């Protein structure tokens, strides 16, 4: 029975208390440590000591301690924070969990991240929203490889405040010499990490020494307890004094008389009358109002969610950034960034991905991996691909220019995530270092002779006929027949064939996944130029990956890409084996052979699917030409327009 006695506190005391509680600030921190460092125990201790554990939860833990506990008869505080069933049975945490506690001075949100597999991904996730990191060290073990790794990731994510929690100090007899040695070792390797505060605290999470209460066993330590430090550390990064940035999330248009731009102020302040520009277009206006439901603000500051109205009707949409005329961010389609990869499928340069940066979503490719960084040794290593949980410095090119600041100057303006175009999974997270060139310097040449005029004299609508399918499916045979027919109808064509291109343009490329991506990228670019020249361009390539075919499709205008799946089943293609390649692949003489030891991702929305088991090559070529005629590619007449 939870009979609560109503505590009718005297009203003034309560009002005072609430007023002080409402004024509390918020500190978000993460804890890093490995399975055995006692991280979950420390968080359990914080919740327990700050009285955030309720009786019914405690009863649950006592019950679970008997079932899963690892500390004998005592209550296992770690069980408070090890959430999901599977984790409890394995005795480890496998994801990021968020915990909450509060003291009289501050409210705290703790990101609890695991220290083993997936460590980089989970730690980066927890660190991305944290102001401070508590790095746990087992006093018996001192600085380990993982300590270096945790510190590196914390620094990578731009965290400026670190607590070095030297835990299990009870197990080394509360020895000051052990503590001092660990602190000295730590300072030696972390000197370049840009931490503004570094507080080392000897503590015992299990017994509570120096967590909330000062330890009686360490008279030699005269620093703050962990909670004292967390309550008082100054984490204000002065976001108000930075240049104003507002990333427009949503255009607010309730009626014809109101047009506002809703977003959260990333940094700086704004007030009516301020001169602003839209970063990407450079269009200028003045701020008219800073609107909220609680009334217009005299000025808006970093962290506030507001709606701006402007004095002029200028074109602004989601993803635009409103900035002061005199302090603009960079606008470019190329930049250098640190990238953390979070997916089983490695990052491949040249492959098209989606970037979300602020409220802007844009297509992008990594043009080169400058180097990987070994998170344990901090060494720079050469790399052609970036596997799960690894970090690299990369150059990125976006399909259109984006507005950004360096992550170190403004995390909200310099952070992005990488999304897979097909699966929609979040694959990676990036922090922009700097722009590589100003996009304003690389205007496209405006040409007098256009694609339309080139196509017009050929009496055709240019297009890419992209033949994809397994080796031996019949792609080149059918493409050749199509080209012959088109030529006989006086159309202008060109055929790019996989084997032929590999003898010239792409002869430097092999058959690894990275090289296949680059192979397709070059062919896609060449076919774009040919379409621009007004040609019907036939491309006959295995092109096994959906993402690369999508890239090729995106390079040309809608309607200019006809994906033709030559859908010969593997067993049929292998039975034909015209070039004897399947035999070699089966024998292990050919590596990365599509369909054997390298995947083929069949098209999901091909314009044409050819059934080679029912129709002859001649019939299939006829189907393609019919499709083109019916869809207006082969129209005649001088008034053709794109």
């Amino acid at each position, binding site marked *: 029975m939870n009979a609560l006695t109503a*505590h009718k506190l005297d009203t003034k005391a309560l009002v005072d208390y609430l007023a002080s509680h409402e004024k509390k600030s918020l500190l978000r921190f993460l804890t890093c440590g490995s399975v055995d460092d006692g991280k979950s125990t420390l968080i359990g201790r914080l919740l327990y000591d700050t009285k955030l554990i*309720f009786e019914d939860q405690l009863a649950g833990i006592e019950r*679970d301690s008997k079932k899963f506990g690892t500390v004998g008869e005592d209550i296992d505080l770690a069980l408070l924070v090890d959430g999901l069933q599977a984790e409890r049975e394995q005795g480890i945490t496998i994801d990021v969990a*968020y915990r909450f506690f509060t003291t009289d001075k501050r409210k705290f949100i703790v990101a609890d991240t695991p220290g083993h597999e997936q460590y980089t*991904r989970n730690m980066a996730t927890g660190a991305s929203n944290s102001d401070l990191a508590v790095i746990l060290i087992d006093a018996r073990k001192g600085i380990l490889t993982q300590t270096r790794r945790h510190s590196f990731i914390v620094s990578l994510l731009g965290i400026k405040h670190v607590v070095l929690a030297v835990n299990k100090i009870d197990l080394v007899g509360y020895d000051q010499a052990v503590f001092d040695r660990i602190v000295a070792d730590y300072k030696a390797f972390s000197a370049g990490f840009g931490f503004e505060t570094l507080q080392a605290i000897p503590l015992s999470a299990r017994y509570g020494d120096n967590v909330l209460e000062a330890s009686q066993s360490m008279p030699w330590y005269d620093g703050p307890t962990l909670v004292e430090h967390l309550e008082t550390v100054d984490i*204000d990064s002065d976001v108000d004094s930075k240049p104003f940035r507002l990333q427009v999330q*949503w255009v607010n248009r309730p009626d014809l008389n109101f047009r506002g731009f809703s977003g*959260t102020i990333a940094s700086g302040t704004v007030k009516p009358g301020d001169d602003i520009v839209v970063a990407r277009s450079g269009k200028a206006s003045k701020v008219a109002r800073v609107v909220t439901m609680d009334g217009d603000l005299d000025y808006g500051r970093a962290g506030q969610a507001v709606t701006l109205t402007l004095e002029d009707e200028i074109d602004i949409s989601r993803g635009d950034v409103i900035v002061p005329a005199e302090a603009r961010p960079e606008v470019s389609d190329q930049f250098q960034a640190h990238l953390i990869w979070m997916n089983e499928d490695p990052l491949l340069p040249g492959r098209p991905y989606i970037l979300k940066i602020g409220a802007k979503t844009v297509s992008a490719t990594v043009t080169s991996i400058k180097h990987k960084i070994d998170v344990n040794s901090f060494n720079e290593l050469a790399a052609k691909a970036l596997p799960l949980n690894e970090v690299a410095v990369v150059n990125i090119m976006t399909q259109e220019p984006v507005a950004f600041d360096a992550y170190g100057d403004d995390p909200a303006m310099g952070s992005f*995530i990488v999304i897979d175009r097909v699966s929609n999974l979040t694959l990676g997270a990036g922090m922009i270092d700097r722009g590589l060139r100003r996009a304003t310097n690389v205007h496209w040449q405006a040409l007098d002779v256009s694609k339309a005029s080139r196509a017009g004299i050929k009496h055709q609508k240019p297009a890419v006929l992209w033949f994809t399918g397994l080796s031996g499916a019949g792609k080149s045979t059918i493409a050749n027949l199509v080209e012959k027919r088109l030529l006989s109808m006086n159309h202008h064509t060109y055929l790019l064939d996989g084997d032929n291109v590999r003898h010239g343009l792409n002869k430097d490329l092999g058959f690894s996944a990275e090289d296949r991506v680059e192979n397709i990228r070059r062919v896609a670019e060449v076919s774009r130029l040919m379409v621009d020249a007004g040609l019907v361009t036939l491309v006959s390539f295995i092109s096994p990956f959906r993402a690369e075919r999508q890239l090729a499709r995106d390079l040309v205008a809608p309607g200019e890409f006809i994906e033709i799946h030559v859908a010969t089943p593997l067993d049929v293609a292998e039975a034909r084996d015209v070039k004897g390649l399947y035999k070699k692949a089966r024998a292990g003489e050919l590596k990365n052979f599509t369909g054997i030891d390298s995947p083929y991702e069949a098209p999901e929305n091909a314009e044409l699917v050819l059934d080679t088991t029912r129709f002859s090559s001649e019939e299939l070529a006829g189907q393609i030409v019919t499709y083109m005629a019916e869809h207006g590619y082969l129209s005649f007449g001088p008034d053709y327009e794109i």
Partner: protein
Amino acid sequence: MSAEPLTHLRRLEAEAIFIMREVAAEFKNPVMMYSIGKDSSVMLHLAMKAFYPSKPPFPLLHIDTTWKFREMIQFRDDTVSRLGLTLLKHTNPDGLRDNVNPFDHGSNVYTNIMKTDALKQALTEHGFDAAFGGARRDEEKSRAKERIFSFRTQNHGWDPKNQRPELWNLYNARIKPGESIRVFPLSNWTELDIWQYILMENIPIVPLYLAKKRPVVQRGGQWIMVDDDRLPLLPGEEPQMKSVRFRTLGCYPLTAAVESEADTLEDIVAEMLTARTSERSGRLIDHDEAGSMEKKKREGYF
């Protein structure tokens, strides 16, 4: 200009507004789950702020199990008409036909059919691609690992091991047709934050949260309110008038009251500060077995 940092409540408020604007901008057909409770009241208040002077660009959805407290339904209808919003209501027609209720079918089967299945039906029927829920990470252990944008398969299933990493405030809203995202803008709020914010912003709440003499029976060590004559009384049970209130609101036969004299918001907050039990202890469905909430969530419960 003040150099004071934003207070934690203002930071939480701004975070929730940011999340709601992202959803409104990125999804074709979002909906806000409206359960009438205090968290829903706060969520709705934040939605009014997020889009002001526009109205929230999505409807509210209430899954009506037909076993809600009468005062909740009254409050729901008053709120919707006061704010001028669109409310969609859904009751599982199969459950209604079979008269599924918490007494004859047990809380597990009842919750599955009248809440989880009903919710899935409504989401599928309207083709919603995003649904806001008022769940908080401090409520329950498996919720502590929940993302703010929580991905659901075409069958509305949740796989805790296969969630997208969520960094900064860059929420990945991309889905394929039929898939959806559950969005939790109050993830980082605690129960105390909710009450303080209600107090600070003067947000209307269902009167059941405030203490009042109400007819109750004692069952399994908890007080159950006799909200209408559908509650079958066991032999020897006699409803008695007690000053009680509710820390959490759900279906009345499944939601226990606590004895309390706290009849103002200030009193409630004061009571919270001295409380020694968590609010979900009043939810009978969480007690079934260890990991019970995780199981329900995998099946599509909010």
